[in-house]
Each structure stands twice: as structure tokens, then as C-alpha cells.
């Protein structure tokens, strides 16, 4: 074997050793590193998502008290039960304030001003949303007084400029209005305020039976419990059947 042969052999042997080292040790380790890096990236993204959810959940916990108040206040507009006494009280109060005589109220949509084809005497559930409770009521008063009455009834639940809701009474939708002069006072060409009879077909709204006012939550905890359920329904009933100050329900921020 010549010296050159030995040299070539040594080079080949050295390259073989280096190649084997690379293939058997270094390359697999580098692949492992790459794989782990990818896993870390995925896990980091997942962590960020979960941390976002946790942050939102913490925020929800901080907002719970305000949200509970909002839900109870919304219960004044749409109570969990029919709350007919509070509705009558609201109509009577509005008519007194506007110098309008509140003549009658009838459950269910009826009369010429009815806009609904069916005139159920009991609440009917809309396919989605709230249960509708149609009713007809009759007022008498001057045109201007009736105008103010409509304004007052609309104001029971209105939007605020900030996108929230201002709730001071039952949410009502007026579907039909019929005004006629009262026969006794009708005099053609009479000047001054003439009394009118207003027959109004309206709809009040009730929460679906499947939903409670607060879904069993209490002022301190959202977790439903038997005690909490009864406690939650009591203040809503009270607040809806008695005059309550206007409450503003603003979007949570």
C-alpha cells in the first residue's frame, strides 16, 4: 500500500466517521428541536387563547353585579310573568299624568283596531324572542292629551343615545290606534279641544316560560340553586308591580 493510498483511506475513514456522527446524533437532535419548537408555538397559541378566555371570564366576574342589576331592570320592561296589575297601574298612572281618562282594558287583541289576525285572550309565544301578550285598552281625552299619552307609553322603555336602554315600565308596542269623537260632545265645526275616544291595540311582552328572570342567579352568585331561584323571582315581581324609578341599562364595556 502506497503512502497515497493510505492518505485516501484516512480521508475516507474520517469522512465516514463525521457522516455517521451527523446522521446518528446531530441530525435527529436537530429534528427533535424543530419538532419541539413547533409544539411550543402551537401550545403558546393555545395558551394565549385560553388566557384570553380566562381574561374574559374574569371580566365577566367583575361585571356580574352590574349585569345582574341590568337583567333585573330589564325585567321591568319584560317580566317573567304576565304582571297584569303592574301593566294596569302603568296605564292608569300615564293617563292620570296626561289628563286622559282610562276607560277599559281587555286582554287579547279585539275591536276594529286589532292588527293581529288572532285575538287570543292568553299570551302567545312568538317563534323566537318573548311571549307576546296582546291587549286592547280604551282612553278618552283630547287629541293633544292622547298624543302625550302615546309619548309617555313609548317612553317606558327607550333607547339612550349611548345605545343602552332606559327602562321605567313595561315595554309596549302599539299596533293599532283608533280615534273617534265622543258622541255626546260631537258638534260639527266646534272649536276648542274636543274629546276623543282612543281604542288602542297593544302588545306587552313576557319572558318565555323556560326562562326565569335571572335564570336562577342571585345577586352574589350566578350558580342556580333552589333558594336562589325563589329569591330571584321575588324582587322582580315586587319591582314590576310597584312604581319603580327609571333605570338605564347600558352596554357593558
Amino acid at each position, binding site marked *: 500500500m502506497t503512502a497515497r493510498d493510505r492518505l485516501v483511506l484516512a480521508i475516507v475513514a474520517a469522512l465516514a466517521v463525521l457522516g455517521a456522527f451527523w446522521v446518528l446524533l446531530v441530525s435527529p437532535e436537530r429534528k427533535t428541536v424543530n419538532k*419541539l419548537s413547533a409544539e411550543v408555538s402551537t401550545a403558546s397559541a393555545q395558551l394565549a387563547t385560553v388566557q384570553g378566555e380566562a381574561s374574559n371570564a374574569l371580566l365577566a366576574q367583575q361585571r356580574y353585579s352590574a349585569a345582574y342589576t341590568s337583567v333585573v331592570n330589564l325585567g321591568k320592561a319584560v317580566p317573567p310573568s304576565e304582571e297584569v296589575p303592574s301593566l294596569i297601574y302603568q296605564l292608569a298612572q300615564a293617563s292620570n299624568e296626561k289628563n286622559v281618562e282610562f276607560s277599559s282594558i281587555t286582554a287579547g287583541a279585539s275591536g276594529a283596531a286589532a292588527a293581529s289576525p288572532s285575538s287570543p285572550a292568553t299570551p302567545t309565544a312568538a317563534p323566537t*324572542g318573548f311571549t307576546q301578550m296582546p291587549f286592547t285598552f280604551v282612553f278618552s281625552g283630547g287629541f293633544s292629551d292622547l298624543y302625550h299619552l302615546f309619548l309617555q307609553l313609548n317612553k317606558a322603555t327607550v333607547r339612550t343615545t349611548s345605545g343602552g336602554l332606559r327602562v321605567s315600565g313595561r315595554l309596549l*308596542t302599539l299596533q293599532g290606534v283608533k*280615534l273617534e269623537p265622543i258622541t255626546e260632545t260631537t258638534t260639527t265645526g266646534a272649536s276648542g279641544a274636543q274629546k276623543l275616544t282612543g281604542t288602542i291595540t297593544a302588545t306587552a311582552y313576557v319572558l318565555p316560560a323556560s326562562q326565569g328572570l335571572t335564570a336562577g342567579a342571585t345577586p352574589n352568585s350566578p350558580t342556580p340553586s333552589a333558594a336562589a331561584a325563589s329569591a330571584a323571582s321575588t324582587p322582580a315581581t315586587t319591582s314590576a308591580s310597584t312604581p319603580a324609578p327609571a333605570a338605564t341599562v347600558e*352596554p357593558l364595556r
Partner: protein
Amino acid sequence: MKAVNLIPSDERRRGGAVVGGGRSQGVAYVVLGALAGVAVLVLLYGVAHHHASSRRSQLATIAAETQRAQESVAALTPYTSFIALREARMKAVADVVDSRFDWAHAFHELGRVLPRDTSITSLDGTVGAAGSTSGSSSSSSTSSTAGSATPVGSVPTITLGGCASSQSEVALTLQRLRLIDGVGDVSLKSSGTSDGSGSSSSSAQQCAPKSPSFSVQITFDPLPAASEPASTTGTQLTASTGGGQ
């Protein structure tokens, strides 16, 4: 002359060794190079191993943090559910509020535009079904598919009966009624005097002799989408200003 090698035979052997040593020096370089390569590879392996260990511990830390965060989320789920309930309920109420027709504003407008010599003997207003243009007071509306009793697209109509001092006053009334905010159409149903000139309605009997009684149907624009912002109660009407032609 014969060439004679003057170098001693010992020196000649050593010199050969020197030559022989030069040849083995090449192999030595190869060995040294191989060792250097191995050293580099070991370094690379060490770095990779270190990174791998670091990533593993990082992964373990992230997994632990994720677990903690998930537990926290699970514990606070009732709160998030309640907030969602609150948002849904507020939206439902807001949708109903936004979909209402502002009767008060309509009456205010009616009082504003009606001519002085015209009086109203009857007023019958309804909010009809979406797409309906019928103004009949007994017109039926389909049951609401949304939460509101007056769903988006419902068409409010008012049928007015009244007395005017003359037929030209009736014409003026028609013109003025088109000035009402949000009115889409004003159409005359009838106009005549009670002395056999065409009108037999009860309102005609309430009018003075020779004074025509009229019946007019006012059709408003359909109620807008509930999602539109409503900063005031008169949004439905103010959205379509310029009804007068």
C-alpha cells in the same frame, strides 16, 4: 568516472526516514481534520440537545399554565353564561324597542300639517304585515316571526275621515298630508257632501251641510331594520324625511 555517494550510509537511512516522515505527515493532517470535524459536530449536538431540553421545559411550563387557565375558565363559566344571557336579553328588548312605530310622532306631524279649515272625524291606524300596503283597519298581519309584534318591514297606515270646507280644501289636505315625516303614500278613498253627492259614510253626516267629508289613507314607509341605531323615539319617521312632493 564513477559517481560516488559521499553521504554516510547512516545519514542516508536517516534522510530516508525524513522523507518517510513527510509522507506520514499527510495522514496526520487528515486525522487532525477529522478530530476538528468531530469537535464541531459535538458542539452542534450539544447546542441542539440544549435547545431540545429548553423546549421541553418550555412546553411543560406552557402546558401547566394552559391547564391552570382552563381550570379558571371552567370555574368562571357561570359568570360568562350570565353575561351572555344579559347581552341576549338586552338585544331582544332593544330589537323590540327599535321596531316600534312612533305613533306620537305621527300624530304630532298630523296636527302640524292639517289645514286650519279641515277637521278629523275619525282616525284609524294600524301597523300591517311586512310588505302589505293595504290600509284597511281590519287588515290582518301575520303573527310575528321575531320577538316584536311589529316586525321589520311592517307598513303603518292611517285612515283618516274628516270634514273640509270645500273640495279644494280636500285637495290641499292631501298635499299637506304628504309633508308628514316618513309618509310613503297618501291616497284619497272618497270625498263628497252628505247631500247625495257620493259620500254615505257616517263622517259625512257629521260634517256641515255642503261641506265635503273625505276619507284618506296615509301609508308610511315600512319599519326599518331593528339593528339600525335609534337615538330617539322618532327614528322610524325621521329616517325618511322628505315625504312631501
